[in-house]
Structure formats: structure tokens, C-alpha cells
């Protein structure tokens, strides 16, 4: 697997409190990696360490397979937008970009204008950043993160506080950056529905600990609608289901989960009865990403 970023038991400790506890994530090149967790779960701490803003107490991370001192040299290939975008309020969008560009030795104004066009801020002219809406500030923050032509973009809660239109604009920008420009994105959010629309890989973090890491397919297979079937003979039931042409089947504990042809519960029951298999329970179950997250992190009382 081609990973652009891996962390190895990355830990950040403040006194006796571990804000990030031996977190090991694996971000595939070209993915949009969604870091899910409630406020205070340790997402920002993890991102700050990866972004070079905070020193890990222990553990390490690799960017493009480089670690140690060579990791730091790779930092020029990482763009960050952590918490609020770092902007000078009395400067225009172009002046803010220019400030960062000067630090990087970039003099090409056309390139900077191109970045503003990419995030939809090309027509802001002399308007100062302090006069921008929250969505515009976030988009300028992304443009700032793109100045150094990053291969990995770290975005911490970029859709926080945005209105529906702002969220949709942000989603389009993320899709464009990932699929058109090939930038890998590590994005955190506690708005799970929205994250589920963009991310292709997920890490679920809770109280500083990474609980699960899985692909979109794996996660959605746990979250989507399914028929949950309980019988007195699981192996015979599986044979019958195979004979009926069901392939998206998963056995979990004493139940069989069926992820296709969800309206055929009647036919299944009749087929089982014909083979003398007793159906104890058959029900349509729906589990949203949010429900799955609550189940994983210990319930809604934790939110």
C-alpha cells in the first residue's frame, strides 16, 4: 500500500493527561482521510504534531516514507489549516498569500491569483480579510495552505460554522483538490454526515486513542441498511442464501447480515422453512455513521 503519511504510536502528554495516546494512522496517497471524533478527542493535537506545530512526547511519523530529521525536510510538502486560518485581518486576500509566498521565495503573482481562483476568491480585490465571511476566511486559509504546492493537506474542522452553501463550496474545493490535483487530504470534523460525503478513508479517535481505522467501504458496510437474520442453523442458512444468489453476506456473532435485496425477507423465510431451518428473527436494520460512532465511543452521553 502506498502511504503518504503514517504515524507510529504518536503520543502527546500534558502532565498526566494524554491528549494523543499512541495513535497510529495510515493515510493512503490520494485519499481523503476523515478523522472523526468529538471536540477534545485529540484530533487537533494529532494534526498539530503531524503539521510540525507541536512536538510529540513519544512516537514518530513518516511522510512519504521519511522519518526523523528527514521528515522535517518533507514538511515543505505539507499544507495546514488548523483551527482558525492564520490571516492578517488588515491585509487583502492577495496580500496574505503574498506574505506566505515571500517566505517561500515564490514571486509568481499569477500563481497566487490562480490559487485565489481555485478557492473562489479571485474577485475580492481590495477587500480586507477582516471583512470576509467565515466561509471566505476558510477558503483563503485553504489557499494559504496551498501556496507551497503541498502533496498532503491537513485541514482541521474546515466546515465548522459554515452555512449549507459554504459547506457545499468547501466540499467542491476538497473534491477538486483531491481528484483534479491529486492532493492527499487529512480532514477532521465532528459533523459526521458531511465528512461521509467526502472522505474515502476513516480514523475514529476518542479520548486521544484511535479506535478504528478503515476504508469507506468497510465503514459503510457497518453503517448501511441490512437484513439481520437469526436462525437455529447458521451454516445451513448460508448454504441456502448462496443458493438464492446472495453474495453480500456477513456473519457476525449469532446473526447473519445481508446487505442486498433487502425487500426479499419473505422469500428468505419461505426458503429457510422449506429446508427446515427455523427463522428466529429477521429484521431490517439501519445504522447511520453517527449511530455507529456512538456505539463505538460509548454512547450519546459522551458527545
Amino acid at each position, binding site marked *: 500500500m502506498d502511504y503518504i503519511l503514517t504515524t507510529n504510536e504518536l503520543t502527546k502528554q500534558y502532565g498526566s493527561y494524554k491528549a494523543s495516546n499512541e495513535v497510529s494512522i495510515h493515510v493512503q496517497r490520494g485519499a481523503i482521510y476523515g478523522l472523526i471524533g468529538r471536540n477534545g478527542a485529540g484530533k487537533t493535537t494529532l494534526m498539530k504534531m503531524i503539521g510540525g506545530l507541536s512536538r510529540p512526547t513519544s512516537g514518530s511519523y513518516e511522510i512519504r516514507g521519511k522519518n526523523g530529521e528527514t521528515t*522535517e525536510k518533507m*514538511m515543505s510538502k505539507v499544507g495546514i489549516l488548523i483551527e482558525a486560518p492564520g*490571516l492578517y485581518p488588515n491585509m487583502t486576500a492577495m496580500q496574505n498569500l503574498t506574505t506566505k509566498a515571500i*517566505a517561500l521565495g515564490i514571486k509568481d503573482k499569477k500563481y497566487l491569483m490562480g490559487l485565489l481562483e481555485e478557492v473562489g476568491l479571485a474577485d475580492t480585490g481590495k477587500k480586507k480579510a477582516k471583512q470576509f465571511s467565515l466561509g471566505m476566511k476558510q477558503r483563503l486559509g485553504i489557499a494559504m495552505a496551498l501556496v507551497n504546492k503541498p502533496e498532503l493537506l491537513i485541514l482541521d474542522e474546515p466546515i465548522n460554522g459554515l452555512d449549507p452553501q459554504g459547506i457545499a463550496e468547501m466540499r467542491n474545493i476538497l473534491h477538486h483538490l483531491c481528484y483534479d490535483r491529486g492532493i492527499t487530504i487529512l480532514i477532521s470534523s465532528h459533523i459526521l454526515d458531511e465528512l461521509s460525503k467526502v472522505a474515502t478513508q476513516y480514523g475514529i479517535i476518542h479520548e486521544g486513542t484511535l479506535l478504528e481505522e478503515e476504508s469507506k467501504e468497510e465503514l459503510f458496510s457497518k453503517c448501511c441498511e441490512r437484513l439481520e437474520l437469526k436462525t437455529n442453523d447458521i451454516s445451513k442458512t448460508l448454504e441456502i442464501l448462496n443458493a438464492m444468489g446472495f453474495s453480500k453476506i456477513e456473519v457476525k456473532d449469532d446473526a447473519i447480515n445481508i446487505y442486498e435485496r433487502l425487500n426479499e425477507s419473505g422469500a428468505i423465510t419461505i426458503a429457510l422453512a422449506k429446508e427446515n431451518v427455523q427463522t428466529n428473527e429477521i429484521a431490517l436494520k439501519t445504522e447511520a455513521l453517527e449511530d455507529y460512532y456512538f456505539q463505538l465511543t460509548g454512547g450519546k452521553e459522551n458527545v
Partner: protein
Amino acid sequence: MSNIFRMHMYRASKAVSTYVILIILAASLFMTLGLLVIAYDNPLTAMVTVTMTESGLEINRLTPTIVHMFYIQSSNTYLILVTVFAVIFTNCDFTRGFAKNTYSMFESRRTLVFSKWLALVTCISASYIVYSFAGLGLSAVCVKAFESARWGDYWVGFFVTYLCLISLVTMVFWITSLFKSPAGGMVIGILISSGTFALIEILIAGLFARTTHLDINLADYFLDYAFMSYNGSIGTSATIRTICVALVYLGLALTMSVFLSDRKDVNV
């Protein structure tokens, strides 16, 4: 390093605070000139220096050195403005969160901090040269300051006060970087530049002299006291001591600022 330096110069050129301070500085130039004229005309506060020459005692009412000290040191306006600028300049990228953009990309934080300090010193140096020469020029026109100018003394005074000023600014830079608090940095900086700390230092020096019976004025080794008490005609050994004190404080504050930056997380 030069790119970071240029970035800081660019942001300073775009900051409103820079222009506000420049306007106040320009106003202060004329206010200080007014005070100088009043002091020059008033027999009680007449600015007189007495110098022993081969032909006997030479009495000079006003010299370029006195004018320079009056502008830079005696009138606290310049020092306070410089301190305010240093605090704003040092803290601005942290209070605005812009530091995240730079600290995340560069391998060496030491280079970042050193470049920022260099940019600050460049701004302060420019203000020092323009302010002191403008003050001198205005004084030459208004109060006949150079009738018996001793330019050698002037340039020594110019250099020593510059060194003390840069050292003081570096202290403010370090304190502000350390606490990341604009208010805290501003208060400490103003207390230093207004001479409030010097009073405490005199007290400490007095207690030290009483308890140890040593013939040393401890206050001479505090930067702000050494700066405030330097007047351009305190003798060679005292001048050398002032230079040494300024260099030691400058070196310590810069070293602390640069090396401690490696250990701190960026919390903006």
C-alpha cells in the same frame, strides 16, 4: 533566512500599527524639539557641558551629543514607541495565527526566530537613524546646537546608545516571545523604557552596597540603568562597561529567544 526576513519586512510595511507609530514618532520629533527649545532658553535648565581642553575650561551650552541623548534617552517617547513597536512586531504573527503558516513548513525554528529578530532590528535601526538625525537637524536650525560640536564624542554616543537600544529591544523580543502575551510584553517593555525598573535596580544596588560593603554600583550592570545613566561624557572605562553590559544582555536575550523556540509548541 532572507525570505523570512523579507516576509517580516513586508508584513511590517502593511501593518496599520507601523504607520500609527511613525505618525506619533514624527509628532514626538517636534514635541521634543519644543522641550529642547524651552530647556535651552531657561537658565535653570540650561544645557551646559564643561570640557577641559588645552586652552582651559570650555563651556558649551549645547552639543550634538546632548541633543542626541535628549531625543533618544531623556525624552521617553522614543523608547516607549520603540518598545510598543517591538511588542506588536514580535507578537503579531502569533496573535493573528499567521505563525502556523511559517512554523509548519520550515525545518529550523531557530532560523525563523533569528530572521524575525533581524527584521525587527532593521526596523528599529532605520527609525533610530532617521529620528536622531532629524532631531539633530531640527536642533541645528532652531537652537544653534553645533557651535562647538565635538563629533568624535557624538559618534561614540551614537554607537553606545544604539547598542543599548538594540539590546533593550532584544530583551523585549525575548520577553514577548516567551510569554506570548502582547499586554504583558507591553507593560514590561514600558516599565523598562520609562525607567521604573531603574528605580528598583537602584534600590537593589543600594541594599547590595550596604550588605557587602563592596565599592561596586550594582545598578551599572542592569541594562536599563546603564542605558539611562549613559550621557556621552562618563569617561572611557564607563563607556566600555556600558558597551559590555549591552553586549552581554543582547547576547543572552538573543540566545534565549533563538534556542528556547525549539522547545515550545506553537499554540495559536
